[in-house]
């Protein structure tokens, strides 16, 4: 019985594959985590991509044809991500693939794409190892060194000397903590403790109480989704928030938190008030009826937009031509996440971040 069902299912799927019609429109691929532990970020990346596609097609598409981004789920699993990347390259014949979120997936799919001579645009991983992927790989997100330097200087400027870092125990958290510590200690500060919490717990009271025992001048933290909301709430409830808190990617850390919990926090975030950024934020709110869930949607948006601009400039979607055009376009390109300029290794060399402080009445730009 079950055999027959699964056999028919397989036959149906194979038939479906063969029946896929040849597409006239221009397609590129994206691999993001729509399920698994990073599904929230992946969904936000997808939203950014979707907004860019809407906007590009409303303005006439790429090279006069509509643009399509084939979004594949990585499930947060490297084998599935590689399935998806190979499908996009070998079957859909896309010239470029953007993604993923976690460095452990971005690295292997990036390396595969480079081997195949396709373009890869990193929109979510900040590990410094991304720099070495290869000659057709780009990053529209500033790697660790870029954001750490900015936030370490900002923290030092507040006069805080002894700080505790709080971050998730994953690739992002490890990179953030390590990067910040290096830069902050160069400036004469001291990281008295680094607390990497396990994501998805029902409470972070114990971690917070451990951190509070160090009596630091400030807590530097980064967290997303439910963890961020819970940490802010419990820090407020335990009174740990009487010490200053500094959020790396403010809107992501406080997305689900009530304002009462996070009043008085300092932080830094992507620049969404540039010429393109403000309209992007409004378009996002209009389409999804909510504030940014994470800081990652903007990179998906920028990656698609900058690809479209480069393809239009090159007059083709052939990877080498687009690569050359991308290097040209990527000089002071006005992105939603701020000005994008690629360095000699095609990584984003500089990102204009905002310095923020939450007050009773709203968010102040310091």
């Amino acid at each position: 019985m079950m055999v027959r069902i699964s056999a028919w299912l397989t036959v149906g799927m194979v038939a479906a594959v063969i029946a896929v019609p040849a597409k006239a429109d221009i397609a590129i691929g994206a691999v993001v985590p729509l399920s698994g532990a990073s599904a929230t970020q992946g969904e936000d990346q997808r939203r950014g991509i979707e907004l860019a596609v809407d906007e590009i097609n409303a303005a006439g598409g790429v090279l006069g044809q509509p643009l399509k981004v084939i979004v594949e789920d990585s499930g947060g699993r490297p084998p599935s991500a590689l399935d998806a990347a190979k499908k996009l390259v070998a079957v859909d014949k896309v010239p470029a693939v953007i993604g993923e979120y976690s460095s452990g997936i971005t690295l292997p799919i990036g390396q595969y794409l480079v081997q195949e001579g396709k373009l890869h645009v990193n929109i979510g991983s900040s590990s410094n190892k991304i720099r070495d992927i290869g000659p057709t790989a780009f990053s529209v997100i500033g790697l660790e060194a870029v954001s750490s330097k900015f936030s370490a200087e900002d923290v030092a400027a507040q006069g805080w000397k002894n700080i505790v870092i709080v971050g998730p125990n994953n690739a992002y958290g490890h990179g953030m903590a390590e990067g910040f510590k290096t830069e902050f200690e160069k400036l004469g500060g001291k990281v008295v403790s680094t607390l990497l919490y396990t994501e998805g717990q029902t409470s972070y009271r114990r971690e917070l109480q451990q951190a509070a025992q160090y009596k630091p001048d400030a807590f530097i933290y980064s967290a997303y989704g439910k963890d961020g909301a819970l940490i802010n709430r419990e820090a407020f409830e335990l009174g740990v928030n009487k010490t200053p808190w500094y959020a790396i990617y403010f809107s992501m850390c406080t997305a689900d938190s009530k304002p009462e919990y996070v009043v008085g926090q300092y932080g830094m975030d992507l620049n969404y008030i540039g010429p393109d950024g403000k309209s992007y934020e409004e378009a996002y709110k209009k389409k999804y009826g909510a504030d940014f869930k994470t800081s990652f949607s903007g990179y998906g948006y920028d990656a698609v937009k900058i690809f479209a601009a480069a393809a239009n400039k090159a007059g083709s979607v052939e990877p080498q031509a687009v690569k050359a055009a991308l290097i040209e376009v990527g000089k002071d390109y006005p992105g939603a996440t701020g000005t994008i300029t690629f360095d000699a290794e095609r990584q984003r060399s500089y990102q204009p971040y905002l310095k923020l402080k939450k007050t009773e009445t709203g968010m102040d730009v310091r």
Partner: protein
Amino acid sequence: MSEFALHVATIAALYAMLALSLNLQAGFAGLINFGQIALFGCGTYGAALAFSHALGPLAGFALGLVLVVLVALLFARLGRNLGADYWGIATLSIGEILRTIATNEIDITGGAQGIGGIPALFDTGSPLSGRLILFAVVLAALIATWFAFRRLTQSKFGLSLRLLREEPQLAAAFGYDLDGLRRRIMLAAALPAALSGFLFAHYLTFVGPDQLFASETFVIWTMVVVGGLGSHAGAVIGAIVVQCLFALVPFAKDAFGLPSEFVAAMRLVLIGGGLIGFLLLRPQGLIPERIGGVRG
């Protein structure tokens, strides 16, 4: 297209080795291992640690073997006085503890960021021919495992395994050394799992703790249950069917214009639904276990 097919075949063959290994434990000896992915992880981290210490792949393979022998012996030791379901939970916990260590010991394992840039095993100048040779090696390893396991289970040893599964107390009463049996079966099953991990690491070029989530173990379980517990051919067929379905899901999405969120749920439905559907409707799997056929 052929490039994609080669990839799916390589991954399917790597998983088939894991499925054969799990099937030997669960299907023949009744050892419900929920920490199977930890055995695989010994192989991946063996390759990665050797690479990060500038040792060759041979050293990596040896390190993987040392690690996997230790973990397998620990699993076997735990099995001494536990029922099958309890042992499953124990192995699940050990798998999680090992993953936690791999995530936290940044100085040794690279932490959550893992170890990248592991070179392909066969550098022939063109990536495609390298991948073809790797596939041939994986296939050879799979076939070798299959034959070795078949010989093992058709021997007297195989009979004692089934006795261990069906009537452990009777086996003990007959004078079988249950601890020794369990140890040997775990060691035999652990080697191809580690080899699969080692080859996977060199295929993917990246090793990290995210590859060791407990959910990966359940993917392997689905393969074994779909194929048929207690059947070597079943484990291999199950791995191929599940991996092909996984690979086809995105095409179904394109063809029917489904939103990409459904693809995410679809993968869970395939694993969960496949498991439960087969357990309920066809518990013997696609290729049922052959009863008898034991040569003395």
